[in-house]
């Protein structure tokens, strides 16, 4: 089990963002998230969104992309895509500022990491708790941070 929430030492700026499809592609392709999942995962993400709608928008302003052990995970990562520009995901929880992705090779650890994220914000205010965790003002620019 995870003993504590991961730290986020790696930061990468992101410039223009056009739409939610681009958000997913940038997120998966950027160097900081590289080697945690295989590239075909983005095809799966886009297909599921097309088939059943914006399932990933789990709360106001927040999208959570799950890369599970069976999705060819290569490493444990918890990258966060924090966007100054709000993006329309066609969800009732729009507009989205934060996309997080959990990747984990081991299913029990995957669930443990999931609970770490949820357990931090009993009122559902993940953005608020992240602001303290990251130790710098969020939403001033767009960037990806990861452990």
């Amino acid at each position, binding site marked *: 089990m995870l003993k504590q929430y991961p730290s986020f030492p790696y930061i990468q700026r992101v410039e223009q963002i056009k739409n939610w499809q681009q958000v997913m592609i940038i997120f998966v392709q950027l160097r900081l998230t590289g080697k945690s999942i295989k590239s075909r995962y983005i095809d799966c993400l886009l297909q599921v969104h097309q088939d059943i709608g914006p*399932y990933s928008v789990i*709360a106001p302003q927040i999208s959570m992309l799950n890369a599970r052990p069976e999705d060819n995970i290569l490493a444990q990562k918890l990258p966060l895509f924090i966007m100054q520009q709000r993006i329309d995901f066609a969800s009732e929880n729009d507009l989205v500022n934060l996309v997080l992705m959990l990747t984990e090779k081991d299913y029990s650890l995957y669930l443990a990491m999931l609970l770490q994220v949820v357990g931090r914000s009993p009122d559902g205010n993940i953005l608020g708790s992240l602001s303290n965790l990251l130790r710098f003002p969020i939403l001033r620019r767009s960037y990806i941070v990861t452990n």
Partner: protein
Amino acid sequence: MKIMAVCGSGLGSSFMMEMNVKKALAKLGVEAEVGHTDLASVTLDDADLFVMASDMAASSSIPAERIVIVKNIVSIVEFEEKLREYFNR
């Protein structure tokens, strides 16, 4: 009573919902068996009550009166409010 949390894949989001349903039920003093599953495989016989996000509910064949819809699936407060409302019907 059996309650089933439902999401697209039956793993991440529905697992979080299951945890939050259990926490909410504990606060409400209600005992129930709680599980989680995916939208494609869920059937009416799986539970007495189904909890899902509104996007899922729109695609589901479960009757509306047996669904509790949550907007923010990481908010225990919302789960407690919605389940209290359901049990007070």
